[in-house]
């Protein structure tokens, strides 16, 4: 084991060095006043990572305060700890959170995505929870079309495919190996993500109330343990890196890439949960971004104490590491544990059992200092709470973007070919190519497999059934950030309702461009306020999340993408509902109106290359009433399938219902809208909100219709399940599709893109 710390003569701290650390002159002044002196090189590095957006949220904090974070079910509030904890009854709780790994994935898709998964999993078991499932929300540039005259695929498309393929196998690699099922998510493809993909990963864990672990360095004199992988020169200053724009030379930023070891993390996970089951732990904190630095000063500041560590004692992978390198390293699979004095042996025994490195590296003291030593030499000494909590807060300038202009007229199209084209669009097409690579069945919980509106998971230890979904239509957000964010929450809640669940809480991942550009920051603010409105409308607190700014490629900022991860509870196994059509003869109802909003629709985007118009508005009162009616119908055992209308509108929803069940057994449907007076394209492809297609067995049809009417929810009988074709009739026209053919188009679209050379 390499122990000795190399103490070089630190480089002189010039304005250039300061700038290179992303620290502004004002911030530097602030640092000096905190220290009462000039910082040394190591301290400068420490401040630079702690005060990066990634760790300090200095640009977004004022906005994040707008989220509702309290409620009767909240056991641990967002921001208090690594992840919020929500009560699910009978003494059980869930901890869940979403995290982004956008920039690392842009540079090295496989490892970038893999370490993202590792990071979010650590956040969850740091809370004392056993991680039980993952979701992932992914965004890339286009992977289809675009072949040049020589029939060659355009290089950017090739690159997007490589990123997409790499990210998916990276997520699979880490999640499958550690044995946590990845049961759901979303994938979108859009030009705005060219060169700056979004990789948002979600993890949920379950725990008993009394098992909630804290990340505080409490108890003066308690020893501080370092456990897990050795420290190497991985991802040096990755946190600072994630808070900078992707430029050509940052591609050269080699060290920003970390390699994950899911095997190590599996051992770490089991060892930590075993240890937390004893009463040896006073506090525990994972080493994520800003590794040792962040974990020491945050535990100290939470505990209102100080922490002193000796770098000589830190397990190292490489020889001759400097204090700067050790403190800023982002080696994965490491934890910091504050142990109750006298219980050290318990820790040693457990980590020996699991063959994991462990070392007592320091002690909790009462002087409020984060003191870092190399042997007897003090290499850094900073007031912990100031470092952790007194990062500057910026109130960025906002400049509204022009409001979207309403569409004058809707271009016509060949309806039958049009729907096929929509279903073949990778953003709408089946994501089987993706989730087939994820072990979604391990842990015996996935009772609704990927492919339905929400994933549904049985938590056996708690005797509970959870539903989870992740949603965000960033095209809407680009056109109208506030409305787009409101819709994201509404769609998530709707997806849960379709599976029979009542929403519990939300985690979010805010992916935006450079906040120094006022119109970007305006988008961020609008989206945050939109999300807040949505969460309030559904009475769901935000348990935490993640902010990723500077998502810009040479071409500009990504579309604003406030990803929503929502978790719900299903009361009774009998209520679990899936989205695909079941049996011939079942009656098809549309709950909600026919709608007419075409702005920002996939129809315009995919078939006419237009990303414009006023995106659909959501009326939360109407939306909630719809969900309540749907759940009421489900509870009465009347609903055989429920699927919401999202991208592609009614036509896409109906088609998915026919083909998203058993691949080999597609089922047809006869649908007749009668006289609607709507242009066919509008009727079939509009993306108005608050609409769900359900099926009911023939003998329950009348009862279902009556109940919906009685509850004042618009309900319309639109057809019956059966046959081998999807046949839609409206205003005297008839369209027909063979469902097996549609399945082929929809089911293999992504696979075809990815197998093409």
């Amino acid at each position, binding site marked *: 084991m390499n122990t000795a710390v190399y103490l070089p003569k630190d480089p002189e701290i010039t304005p250039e060095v300061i700038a290179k650390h992303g620290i502004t002159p004002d911030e530097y002044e602030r640092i000096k006043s905190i220290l009462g002196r000039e910082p040394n090189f190591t301290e400068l590095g420490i401040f630079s990572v702690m005060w990066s957006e990634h760790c300090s949220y200095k640009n977004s904090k004022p906005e994040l305060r707008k989220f509702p974070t309290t409620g009767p079910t909240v056991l641990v509030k967002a921001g208090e700890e690594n992840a919020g904890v929500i009560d699910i009854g009978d003494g059980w709780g869930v901890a869940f959170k979403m995290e982004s790994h956008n920039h690392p994935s842009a540079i090295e898709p496989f490892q970038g995505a893999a370490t993202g998964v590792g990071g979010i999993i650590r956040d969850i078991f740091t809370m004392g929870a056993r991680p039980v499932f993952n979701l992932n929300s992914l965004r890339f540039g286009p992977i289809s079309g675009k072949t040049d005259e020589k029939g060659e695929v355009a290089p950017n498309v090739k690159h997007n495919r490589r990123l997409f393929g790499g990210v998916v*196998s990276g997520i*699979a690699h880490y999640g*499958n*190996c*550690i*044995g946590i099922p990845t049961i759901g998510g979303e994938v979108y493809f859009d030009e705005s993500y060219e060169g700056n993909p979004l990789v948002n990963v979600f993890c949920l864990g379950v725990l008993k109330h009394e098992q909630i672990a804290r990340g505080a360095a409490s108890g003066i004199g308690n020893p501080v343990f370092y456990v897990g992988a050795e420290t190497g020169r991985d991802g040096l200053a990755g946190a600072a890196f994630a808070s900078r724009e992707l430029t050509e030379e940052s591609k050269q930023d080699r060290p920003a890439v970390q390699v994950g*070891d*899911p*095997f*190590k993390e*599996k*051992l770490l996970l089991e060892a930590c949960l075993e240890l937390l089951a004893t009463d040896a732990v006073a506090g525990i904190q994972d080493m994520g971004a800003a590794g040792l630095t962040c974990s020491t000063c945050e535990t100290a500041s939470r505990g209102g104490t100080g922490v002193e560590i000796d770098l000589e004692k830190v397990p190292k992978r490489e020889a001759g590491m400097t204090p700067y390198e050790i403190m800023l390293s982002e080696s994965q699979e490491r934890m910091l544990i504050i142990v109750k004095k006298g219980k050290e042996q318990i820790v040693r025994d457990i980590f020996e059992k*699991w*063959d994991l490195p462990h070392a007592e590296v320091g002690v909790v003291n009462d002087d409020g200092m984060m003191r870092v030593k190399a042997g007897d030499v003090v290499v850094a000494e900073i007031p912990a709470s100031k470092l952790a909590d007194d990062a500057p807060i910026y109130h960025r300038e906002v400049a509204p973007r022009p409001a979207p202009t309403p569409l004058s007229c809707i271009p016509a199209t060949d309806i039958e070919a049009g729907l096929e084209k929509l279903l073949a669009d990778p953003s709408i097409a089946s994501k089987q190519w993706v*989730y*087939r*690579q*994820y*072990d*979604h*069945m*391990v*842990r*015996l919980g*996935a*009772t609704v*497999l990927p492919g339905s509106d929400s994933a549904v998971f*049985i938590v*056996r230890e708690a005797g509970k059934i959870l539903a989870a979904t992740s949603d965000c239509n960033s095209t809407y957000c680009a056109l109208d950030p506030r409305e787009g964010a409101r819709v994201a929450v509404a769609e998530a809640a709707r997806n849960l309702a379709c599976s029979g669940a009542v929403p519990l809480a939300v985690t979010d991942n805010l992916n935006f461009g450079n906040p120094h550009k006022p119109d970007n920051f305006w988008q961020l603010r609008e989206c945050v306020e939109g999300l807040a409105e949505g969460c309030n409308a559904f009475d769901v607190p935000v348990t935490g999340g993640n902010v990723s700014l500077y998502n810009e490629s040479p071409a500009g900022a990504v579309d604003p993408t406030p990803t929503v991860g929502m978790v719900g509870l299903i009361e009774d*196994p009998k209520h679990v509902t899936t989205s695909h059509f079941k049996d011939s003869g079942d009656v098809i109802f549309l709950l909600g109106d026919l709608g007419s909003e075409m702005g920002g629709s996939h129809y315009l985007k995919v078939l006419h290359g237009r990303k414009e118009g006023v995106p659909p508005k959501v009326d939360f009162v109407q939306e909630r009433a719809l969900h309540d009616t749907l759940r009421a119908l489900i509870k009465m055992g009347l609903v055989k399938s429920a699927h919401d209308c999202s991208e592609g509108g009614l036509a896409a929803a109906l088609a998915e219902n026919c083909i998203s069940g058993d691949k*080999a057994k597609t089922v047809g449907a006869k649908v007749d809208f009668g006289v609607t007076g709507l242009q066919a394209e509008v009727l079939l492809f509009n993306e108005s909100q608050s609409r769900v297609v359900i099926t009911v067995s023939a003998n329950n049809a009348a009862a279902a219709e009556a109940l919906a009417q009685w509850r004042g929810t618009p309900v319309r009988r639109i057809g019956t399940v059966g046959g081998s074709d999807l046949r839609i009739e409206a205003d005297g026209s008839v369209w027909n599709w063979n469902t097996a053919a549609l399945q082929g188009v929809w089911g293999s679209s992504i696979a075809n893109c990815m197998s093409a050379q």
Partner: protein
Amino acid sequence: MKAAVIRFPGSNCDQDCHYALQNVFGVPTDYVWHKETSLSGYDLVVLPGGFSYGDYLRCGAIARFSPIMKAVTDYAQNGGLLIGICNGFQVLTESRLLPGALVRNRSLHFICENRPLRVEAVNNPFLSQALSGQVLNIPIAHGEGSYTADEATLKELISNQQVLLRYCDANGFVSDASNPNGSADNIAGICNAARNVFGLMPHPERACEKALGSTDGKVIFESILNSLGVRAAA
């Protein structure tokens, strides 16, 4: 009757196998840590799925040298019932308790999905309660499940009826189209000549409850219990 589920570092289906045995079939089941050296008192030993030792180098290659494997080998040589599921199967081939090897899926992708399997032989303790030719729907979840062995070995496996499960289509038809990973002869599971060691890539423990979509995995556990003279509790 008592069952043991071996826990290697990196095993991740150990809890699932334990649940199936104990909660679904009412079999008293212990976890046995890989650093243990004895398996006395067990009537059934399960090598569970997962990524033992991260599956670094080759799947199962390092696990094979865990202290417990000596005991596992002796146990098997004394006729004890031993079943290796997924990574467990890989450990069995690496330790030569079963012939052949499992290599990278031909698609180069990890594949997780329900698969129809055809029961090829029932004259063994693992499928005695099934019908020969019966189609079982059981999930697979692996990146390296393509079974391979030299011609002679394959011939022998077939003539001895040691091939117990083959990948097939919904109607029990075995063809290359119904082969998910490129396995020789669509082989999904085999047993040793003595018929007391069974290795299979599919996960029967994931197909023992309606809520999980299929209960076709139960027949394997029921057969084992039956052959041990135990009436399945479920």
